[in-house]
């Protein structure tokens, strides 16, 4: 046992570091950040595949309290975003708060001492009066459930754990998956690999990404007059907010988005059958929209082939599709996404009276305003249940959660509250309302996606505008909680 800080933060990605910065700015410096890797960055540290970039403009995909005037492009590459995260650590002197190489394996709450204890893989334990879960929804790579996966004798690479030592030059490469990572990887692979075969199960809606270099004068202007960057951020923000009308709710605007996507496809893909193969049969927004201008041209390169036959099995030499053909390849890239915890927790979390969050979330995660869970006092979630945006920057949502958590921690500290547990009736009412509102969204319009549990329960997305999400978290209402030991 080392010490009992006020706040134990699990994860040193965007959310964990952002929480630490805001806590420090509010005068709470008794914090410890536990990070399983040896570097900060989370998703952006892990996703270093060729072409990795954000599909939200950088001035919006950054914290409002830590603007960066010199983003090189409208949509930054992963390396630049990772550098921004590392810059945050430097600028706010966070290194002293981070314990690297500490992999949390379990959390448990002791009502008697009103503290949380984190068990770690190394055997060390850490305690905290409050805990902020910032492990991130996209932290664990997901390998697909395909027959014969282990029998393959060639090279296997997961997009979220890219092997930079493997040279793709002249190689025959298969890419499994056509989601957000794949559409960024494929245009890069076709530049070097001898042959790229893209195995698609379900096509996604593709919109062009209006990427451009930030001109020098703009960067200078942002630096000299920060209000101009703020203005640019507002412009991007409201543009994205407007997109919610078609991307969040299933409306005629959704049809308009589909028409734009189809026109874009028609402009870029010549062959009608290929267009048919690439046209989704679900409503735009139901699965994550793909923002790319390079993917369709890459698919039509002479060394690239789109394969839509179902994969029958992976064989020692390659991939066998249901049309009876074996595709012999040197390397398989699995762009198959992440293991998102929708019906459990990344590690066991035991709350009051030994209750297990894993059990309670077995049929779908829920929380109050995505941040607190009844029965798990003094525990706060970032990117908790139903806090995902379908149309705007995740960092806006994260920032709202962080500011809410900081307010709650200050309240706990200033009022001497020992146990700060959200009321179950409030939580139930909130979630009933969430599910009612989700029914009209594109995500619940009939497709299967990583947003939904196996039985179609949406535990990930927030059914509304970013403005609404921010507003609901603007203040901590003590009536929503049952504080014990209030001074």
């Amino acid at each position, binding site marked *: 046992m080392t010490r009992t800080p006020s706040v134990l933060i699990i994860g040193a990605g965007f959310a964990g570091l952002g929480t630490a910065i805001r806590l420090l700015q509010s005068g709470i410096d008794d914090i410890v950040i536990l990070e399983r890797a040896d570097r900060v960055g989370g998703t952006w540290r892990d996703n270093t595949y060729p072409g990795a970039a954000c599909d939200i403009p950088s001035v919006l995909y950054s914290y409002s309290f830590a603007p960066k005037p010199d983003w090189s492009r409208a949509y930054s590459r992963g390396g630049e975003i990772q550098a921004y995260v590392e810059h945050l650590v430097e600028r706010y002197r966070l290194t002293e708060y981070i314990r690297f190489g500490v992999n949390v394996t379990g959390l448990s709450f002791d009502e008697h001492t009103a503290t949380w204890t984190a068990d770690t893989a190394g055997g060390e334990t850490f305690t905290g009066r409050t805990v902020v879960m910032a492990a991130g929804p996209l932290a664990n790579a997901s390998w697909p459930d395909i027959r014969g996966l282990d029998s393959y004798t060639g090279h296997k690479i997961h997009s979220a754990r890219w092997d930079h030592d493997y040279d793709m030059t002249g190689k025959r490469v298969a890419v499994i998956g056509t989601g957000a990572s794949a559409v960024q990887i494929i245009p890069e692979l076709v530049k070097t690999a001898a042959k790229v075969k893209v195995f698609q199960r379900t096509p996604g809606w593709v919109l062009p990404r209006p990427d451009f270099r930030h001109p020098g004068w703009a960067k200078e202007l942002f630096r000299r007059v920060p209000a101009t960057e703020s203005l640019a951020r507002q412009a991007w923000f409201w543009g994205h907010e407007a997109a919610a009308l078609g991307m969040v709710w299933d409306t005629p605007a959704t049809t308009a988005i589909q028409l734009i996507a189809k026109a874009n496809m028609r402009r870029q893909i010549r062959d009608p*059958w290929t267009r*048919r193969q690439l046209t989704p049969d679900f409503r735009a927004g139901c699965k994550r929209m793909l923002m790319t201008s390079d993917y369709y041209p890459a698919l039509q390169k002479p060394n690239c082939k789109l394969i839509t036959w179902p994969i029958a099995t992976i*064989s020692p030499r390659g991939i066998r599709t249901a049309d009876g053909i*074996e595709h012999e390849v040197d390397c398989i890239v699995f762009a198959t996404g992440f293991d998102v915890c929708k019906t459990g927790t990344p590690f066991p979390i035991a709350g009051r009276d030994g209750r297990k969050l894993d059990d309670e979330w077995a049929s779908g995660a829920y929380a109050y305003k995505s941040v607190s869970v009844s029965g798990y006092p003094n525990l706060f979630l970032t990117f908790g249940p139903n806090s995902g945006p379908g149309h705007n920057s995740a960092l806006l949502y994260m920032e709202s959660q962080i500011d809410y958590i900081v307010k709650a921690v200050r309240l706990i500290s200033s009022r001497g509250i020992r146990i700060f547990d959200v009321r179950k009736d409030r939580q139930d009412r909130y979630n009933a309302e969430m599910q009612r509102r989700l029914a009209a969204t594109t995500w619940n319009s009939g497709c299967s996606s990583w947003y939904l549990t196996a039985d179609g329960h949406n535990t990930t997305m927030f059914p509304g505008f970013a403005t609404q999400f921010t507003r609901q978290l603007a203040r901590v209402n003590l009536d929503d909680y049952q504080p014990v030991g209030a001074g």
Partner: protein
Amino acid sequence: MAFEYSDMLTTIKDKQWALADIDWDAPGAETLTAEQRPRLKAFMSDLVWIENVGARGFAALAKKAPTEDLKQIYQYFHAEEQRHANAELALMRRWGMIEGDEMPMPNNNIRLVIEWLDRYSDGMPLSTLGTVIPALETALDGALVKFLLDEVTDPVCQEVFRHINSDESRHLAVGFQVLDMLGAGPMRKILIEGAGTVMRPSVMLGLLVYSPLLTRMITNISAMGLSEDKLHIAIRRFDKAGERSRNTRRLPVFHVVKFHAGLAINHRQPFQFVAEQMGTVIDHLPMGLLGKVPSWSNELTHEPVSR
């Protein structure tokens, strides 16, 4: 026991096979007689293309499937029909009927069917293709392919068609289950949909290209020595399997397809003459006017491994 599409999907995944599973150089190719070769080449060429257009039919059905499981099943069937065409191509190559990357040419009639499927199949209701495909499969599976197995003793051919027949049995099981499902709706809806289907110009056009093709296939196979009785038995299978279900019997499309199949195998009625004449007209149509073949019909390969 009730039919579960999810169980069927699992079975389909379990039963996958690949061209690479078959030893295409195994002895037995020489058992083909010089007399069989030319007629068999013509028959196999048509068969390859019929599998290919069948595949496209399943692709259209996948778009219409009311459930995710059925959609996935149709996606597999689409690929499996393509696999059959690929395997049949590989057999043709084994028998020296095609050289290198040569592809058998689709006859004019098949070329028109390809064009029709490319233009109209995605817009067809589930009941239309969902009825025609099982009828064709019953005929192919029950008569043509079995006849081929009787005639050709090459063990590789036997192995290939054992696999194909096994796949087709699942295609038929699902096909008849879907017909049963479609026939379970309110009669008013079934009649309105049925009438709407018949009145579609695309359906009429489809009949104009499908009828002579079926007649042509039957004539060709009869010329090879298949008795009319065997054809009757095959078509009766479609009839019987459909009639077993009270729901399927309520589908007007089922009765139309059944009636048409009955006509097609009966040489002694006026329809036969009309269909044959239509076939002759089709043979003389300038196919160049249709332009390029759709790219989905260029995907066939006899190579078990793509490197």
